[in-house]
């Protein structure tokens, strides 16, 4: 049984469905990549897993079960859910605050102070492979960091609230190849402790980092399997066409 399961998950903007009746099981401590052409609903699918779609007024039908609990039932505490299911965005989006305050933001909100807070900040920055670069300037602004560093800072910020699952929405699309390689190495490291779902438009990236791959097309989940199978022996013709670059 997967850590995350969806049952007939649909998300609609007005009357237009962005994803249609998606059924998937995502395993714990694995990296699951979500691929597909632009507008296929992969980001909408990702944002359904921590209920971020409702911020844009989307309607969600069906179920998303995390540990067997439907996060769309009436009594889910959305803030607690988002603490469990962290998110890293496409553009690095550190707050206009110091490096320390960025990482400390989440723990502080959840009431953590003083020495414990300092320890969490250090641990999170270490896990995000940023500590060595910033430990002597934690008080300087996060906006002074490079794009790649900012994105690792955002990862550290997400780790600081101790999530179980981390959603990555095309985390490298704004980064150069070296920064991308660092993030990918980091993802492999992080999957020991976290369950990772990553949306990417870059098929090589999916092939390099993920254990499982889901292929979306026009809002539908076309194929979901182990990454090696998807890339070597796809069952569906459309998957094959996409990964061989015939469209997309």
């Amino acid at each position, binding site marked *: 049984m997967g850590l995350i399961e969806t049952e007939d998950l649909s998300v609609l903007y007005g009357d237009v469905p962005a994803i249609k009746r998606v059924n998937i099981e995502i395993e714990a401590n694995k990296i699951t990549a979500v691929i597909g052409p632009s507008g296929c609903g992969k980001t909408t699918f990702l944002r359904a897993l921590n209920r971020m779609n409702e911020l844009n007024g989307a309607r969600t039908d069906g179920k998303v079960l995390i540990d067997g609990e439907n996060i769309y039932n009436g009594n889910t505490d959305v*803030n607690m859910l988002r603490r469990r299911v962290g998110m890293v965005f496409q553009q690095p989006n550190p707050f206009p605050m110091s490096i320390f305050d960025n990482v400390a933001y989440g723990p502080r*909100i959840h009431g953590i102070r003083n020495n414990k807070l300092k320890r969490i900040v250090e641990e999170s920055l270490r896990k995000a492979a940023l500590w060595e670069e910033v430990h002597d300037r934690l008080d300087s602004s996060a906006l*002074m960091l490079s794009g790649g560093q900012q994105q690792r800072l955002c990862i550290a910020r997400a780790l600081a*609230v101790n999530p179980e699952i981390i959603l990555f929405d095309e985390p490298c699309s704004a980064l150069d190849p070296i920064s991308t390689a660092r993030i990918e190495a980091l993802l492999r490291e992080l999957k020991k402790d976290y369950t990772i779902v990553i949306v990417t438009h870059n098929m090589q990236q999916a092939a390099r980092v993920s254990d499982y791959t889901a292929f979306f097309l026009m809002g539908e989940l076309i194929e979901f399997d182990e990454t090696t199978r998807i890339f070597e022996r796809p069952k569906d013709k459309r998957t094959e066409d996409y990964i061989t670059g015939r469209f997309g």
Partner: protein
Amino acid sequence: MKTGVIKAILCAISLISVVVLLGVVFYILMAGARVVSPGFLFRSPDYINFEEGGIFPQIVGSLYLLAVSLLFAVPLGVASGIYLAEYAPRNIVTMCTRLFVECLAGIPSVVIGLFGLTFFVYYLGFGPSVLSGGLSLGIMILPWTVRASEEAIKSVPSTYRAASLALGASKWQTIRLVVLKSAYPGMITGILLGAGKAIGEAAIVLLTTGGLATFLPHSLFDDVGSLPVYIYLVLTVIPASREIGEAYAFGASLVLIGIFLCISIFALLLRNRYIKRLRGE
């Protein structure tokens, strides 16, 4: 060629604006400097031996009135701005509220003064006082603080909100800890515009405070002097000669401009400090 001509014309026009404004300031400076002295700044007006008097109660009174008006308008304006920008549903009621705020900004100050006189002074029984004047001025600048707050909050990038919410912060925590911090510079600019209007306002103060006070108010319910009212009175009713009245009016104007300049500089420094902090310098 064409670009050059347009540029030259625009440059000339803007030069004219600058020269006109500088001329006005220079004229006030020259005319006012003749009467501004320590005695003028720190003595009370003397309506019998006029040239022995000063404007100290008027300076303090203007600052009192400004403080009361800001204490009224800023919290209300910021709270309304937050509601309009972050919570208000997009419907006809919200649209009407915005329209109403716009209209409120356009009400002539003498009409607000009339309202202040009937409502605060007579109906609520505050009398001609610091409180009546400050609240009436607060009503005048409220639309500016609402609009400035709303616009400043709206201009905060939505990625900050998304990042905060994704960490499990509630909407209110997000607004309080991330959005407002980024919106301060814009709010300060808007509040400063309001403060400038309030400190220079004569009609409202004339109608809602006595305005002739030669002493400092001891409570919110005391009569209070103000610089714009002083300027109006010395030009119209009090002094024996026109020359003396004008000279003292210019003196008070110079002080008024000086006070507003100080407030502006303080506000801009504060704003730049926030901007620098946001940019991480």
